[in-house]
């Protein structure tokens, strides 16, 4: 078992987002967390990543509580949230250099092949803030190619991506799953095009 959540409860303000949520992720699985806006999908992902404390319940990584093994957990985790952590003042290459270095795969040369694959060639000298939303998202997602984390937690990775971008991401997911990794993501789109089994966890909007 790669990641296991037992009876996770989250209360934001006065409202209970979810009460007793369970999830068990095996290597090679892709999980989609579904639910309407405000149901707590992002909060759930942040609890799984260890960014947000749960009011009750535990999250275990390889059988150990994520709070106890946070260094090991975070070295095997890639989390890309709603705000992707791309510095708008820096270029694509400078942003990727930083993440490659802290993910343990320092770049020895600019990753032109990857940039070409992601359609970012010719834009490498432009600060990210002057690129479109979709292009910025592509920079953030380029991190998926520059790491060897076993667990990916992605909050709305397909937002602002065009069809070719979504295709690329699907291919990368497949590679990752085939090599024994796991993906947990939220998305409002159905993942029908993805040629792997998609496990789903549905959250409902709670009115209390």
């Amino acid at each position, binding site marked *: 078992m790669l990641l296991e959540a037992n009876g996770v409860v989250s209360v934001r303000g006065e409202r209970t987002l979810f009460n007793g949520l369970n999830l068990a992720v095996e290597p090679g699985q892709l999980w989609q967390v579904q639910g309407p806006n405000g149901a707590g999908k992002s909060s759930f992902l942040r609890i799984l990543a260890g*960014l947000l404390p749960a009011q009750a319940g535990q999250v275990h990584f390889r059988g150990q509580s994520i709070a106890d093994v946070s260094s090991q957990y975070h070295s095997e985790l890639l989390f890309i949230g709603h*705000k992707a952590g*791309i*510095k708008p*003042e820096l270029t694509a290459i400078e942003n990727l250099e*930083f993440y490659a270095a*802290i993910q*343990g795969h320092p770049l020895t040369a600019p990753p032109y092949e990857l940039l070409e694959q992601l359609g970012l060639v010719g834009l490498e000298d432009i600060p990210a803030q002057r690129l479109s939303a979709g292009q910025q998202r592509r920079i953030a997602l380029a991190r998926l190619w520059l790491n*060897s984390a076993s667990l990916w937690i992605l909050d709305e990775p397909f937002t602002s991506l065009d069809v070719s971008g979504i295709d690329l991401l699907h291919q990368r997911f497949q590679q990752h799953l085939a090599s024994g990794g796991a993906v947990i993501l939220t998305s409002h789109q159905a993942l029908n095009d993805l040629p792997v089994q998609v496990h789903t966890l549905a959250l409902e909007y709670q009115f209390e």
Partner: protein
Amino acid sequence: MTPAVSIRTHMKALIQRDLRVAMRQRSDLLNPIIFLLVVVTLFPLGVGPEMNMLARIAPGVIWVSALLSALLGLERLFRDDFRDGALEQMLLMPLAVEWAVLAKIAVHWLLTAVPLLVLAPLLALLLNLPGEAWGALWLSLLLGTPVLSSIGAVGVALTVSLNKGGALLSLLLLPLLIPLLIFATAAVETAANGLSPAGPLALMGAITVLAVVLSPYAVHAALRVSVN
């Protein structure tokens, strides 16, 4: 398996990135320094060019304006990182977050205190500070600025998620920085009177060590609350 990445690599990558970002926002960087210079040059015009009077108020004027100018650019420490999500990524680094915080504080010190230390002799000259006190002024700034950066980081970490944290930040920090101001001006004044400033400077050194060592823990705790 992810290769182990050392604390040094992480801190180096963070410092490098933050310096790069700062170099792209030079006006943000220059504003506090210009503010400081303007305040110090306006004082002789405001209170009159009487040399003795200027020499007497010089330590206080220089330190108060250094303190206020430090507060000016302080929010930048975590605000942008909070907005673009880099802060979350920092909390997810596979190392004790305190090290990353220390790197952020170090960058802030490099960008705000080093220009101040370079300008200090000019400020002393503008306010006719006696020659004997120049060394004490410089040492007090060298010892005091790490305290500004590290206690400031705690304040920013607490207020970063608030929309209008600016005013609250000053209210929160100024009382904490008053002891620093008292010891710093005391050191410069004793030196100006021809006495040894070792006493107040030693106390400042103690405050510096305490602030730099303990603040990363406080910042970490505050950031965990702020990113919620």
